[in-house]
């Protein structure tokens, strides 16, 4: 009995951490280039909402295999677009990145909320939509499509690590985040690098949101991202701004989410609300434990 509980805990941890992993990888690449991305939550919302709407729209014509896939792609595009908006605000208009990120979160929440009403005629949540399909992967209890996304998340983690530490592009991004003047002296354009990095971070966050919407839950509802974009930021710090570290941190936070689902009904002395609050408390504790002793990229948040 306990063994199957542990297995489902493990499996659920991985599943629950996927959206956070995507978002936190986005956070890493953005901050490494020097842009603080508080808007990850909004980009996740954009990805979630858009993928639901598009999937619902095109599945009738394209079929249950391709419909959600298109929804996914457009969802990623939506996230990338919002990332691009933040990037332009940060590089061309040199705004206060934190304030802009807050604005983006509120804006995306509003667009998604109003959009749900416009498209589905409902307030608060959309109806069930076609989700990523494929045969059910037994022990994961997930469709093949969602499973692919799950694996891809960790592939992205490896890929981002390789990209940052081994390629010229990665070196330049690192330099942008530490000292953009050095990049300019080297004859490159740090603003373009930053814009690209933030757009990619939006795409990743959008992917995480899309996974949540059409991979896991099959709908969009207000507040479904539940602050994961912010937990992802805590994961960036906890993971010391490295792709693998952040991924590990994301899984750590995902564990608490999984814990809540698994323990439901089994542990009666712990109130449900306390369990739901666990991931957030974990993030708080992690933040307290680690931030004094780590260093952000030196030019993080500083407009160039």
């Amino acid at each position, binding site marked *: 009995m306990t063994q199957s509980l542990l297995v489902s805990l493990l499996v659920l941890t991985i599943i629950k951490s996927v959206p956070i992993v995507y978002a936190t990888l986005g956070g890493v690449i953005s901050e490494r280039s020097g842009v603080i991305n508080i808007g990850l939550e909004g980009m996740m919302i954009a990805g979630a909402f858009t993928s639901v709407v598009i999937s619902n729209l095109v599945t009738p014509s394209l079929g249950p295999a391709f419909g959600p896939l298109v929804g996914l792609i457009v969802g990623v595009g939506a996230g990338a677009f919002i990332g691009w908006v933040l990037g332009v605000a940060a590089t061309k208009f040199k705004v206060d990145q934190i304030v802009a990120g807050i604005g983006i979160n509120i804006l995306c929440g509003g667009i998604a909320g109003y959009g749900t009403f416009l498209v589905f005629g409902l307030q608060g949540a959309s109806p069930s939509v076609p989700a990523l399909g494929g045969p059910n992967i037994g022990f994961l209890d997930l469709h093949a499509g969602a499973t692919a996304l799950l694996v891809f998340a960790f592939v992205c983690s490896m890929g981002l690590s390789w990209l940052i530490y081994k390629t010229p592009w990665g*070196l330049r991004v690192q330099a942008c985040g530490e000292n953009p003047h050095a990049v300019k002296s080297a004859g490159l354009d740090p603003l373009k690098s930053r814009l690209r990095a933030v757009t990619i971070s939006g795409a990743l966050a959008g992917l995480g949101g899309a996974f949540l919407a059409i991979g896991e839950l099959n709908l969009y509802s207000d507040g479904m991202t539940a602050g994961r974009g912010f937990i992802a930021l805590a994961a960036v710090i906890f993971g010391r701004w490295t792709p693998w570290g952040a991924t590990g941190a994301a899984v750590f936070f995902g564990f608490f989410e999984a814990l809540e689902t698994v323990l439901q009904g089994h542990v009666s002395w712990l109130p449900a609300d306390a369990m739901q609050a666990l991931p957030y408390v974990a993030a708080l504790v992690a933040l307290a434990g680690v931030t004094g002793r780590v260093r952000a990229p030196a030019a993080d948040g500083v407009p160039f």
Partner: protein
Amino acid sequence: MRGIRKAYPGVVAVNGVDLDLYPGEIHALVGENGAGKSTLSNIAFGEVKADAGTVKANGSVGLVHQHFELVGRLRVWQNIVLGREPRKGLRIDEAAARAMVTALAAKNGLEIDPDAFVEDLPIGVQQRVELLRELEREPTVLLLDEPTAALAPAEIDAFFATITALAKRGTAIMIVTHKLQEVIAYSHKISVMRHGELVAKLDTYSTSVDDIARAMVGGDLPPVAEREPTTLAPCLTIDDVTAGTGAARADGVTLQVQSGEIVGIAGVEGNGQTALADAIAKMIDYEGVIGLDSKPAIVPQDRHREALVMSWSIVDNAVLGRQHDPGIQKGLLLDGTRARRDAEAIKERFDVRAANLDVAVKTLSGGNQQKIVVGRALIDDPKFVLAYNPTRGIDVGAAALVQSRLMQARNAGAAILLISFELDEILTLADRILVMYRGKVVGNFTRAQVDRAAIGRLMAGSAA
């Protein structure tokens, strides 16, 4: 360069300058702080666009900045190849990059460890990295902005050996500097700037330090206040103080400063001065004993970050650091009238040129900003003053005034610890001169015993 003109809000930095650089020639661009030299070299490099005029170069132009533009958390080789990374497919060919850096360093007679992290290197070595980065691009014109500011005398010789060899190989070199001795020793031609204009073109062989200095200032240098006899009494004792971490820490420093004297600490940047200063200011932890029974007045080395709130007015800045003093804090309130009175007093005594007391200090020149900082430090007649590079980056007139006021404070009985990277400043002001090297005090001279050459050797780490 022909007819270069560049204006910023409130000031014309460069006003109609023509300048030619020839291969094989070392051309010195001199002028006091604020004359426009850095702006001109930034325009020559292309980092800043001139409002008018043309820049033509026969090949590429490199610039070694005064404040290095390196990425501390990356390695030496990464900094040098940034933007021109050798590739192996999609990745960086690290072995090729390292080899290339080592070869480049050897070719120019410089020693460097390609794998070291730049932030761990002493400043003199960091400069080598910046230099190598520019040389990697094989520029036909190389500009150097205050290249020897952070070098010890021995390192300066090595540096100029490299530069002279480079010139012989055909590079056109321009050095922006205010170190006139080096100009006389190593340059071929000299251009003097004053208030944005080129006021003199000199041949190094036919001129002297005094001629250049006079051209820079447009007259004789303003005098510093007279030194007067004082009665000494103990004030500050520093006993075996260790502070800070890494190469730039202070290591077992022992010294005393008495009322009525100025003790100067000479040394190259990065030898523990900042750690010592921060320990005295109680900004960092330290081991050992610092005995001082009054509140120190501090003139920090970085007025923009450490001494002023740039967006605030002179009035508001006049009470920064003093907001809890009796007379200024009344219960929960801040006495605004008193703040204004103090600001007025500072403006008077320190000749601060500003339209009124309510302008934001960021609109003032560096010299005026520094005068406010020093004025504020001295306004309450402190018993002890720590002045760290008090005249860095300000024009000669402001520098002379600041030095005069410090001397007057000393005459009136204050104990002053002066830390400066400009040996001349120490020699002008100090009653006793100490030298710091690698965190330790390695030399102790009175005014009578001053031996410039010996001090220079100590600064570089050799025996006196």
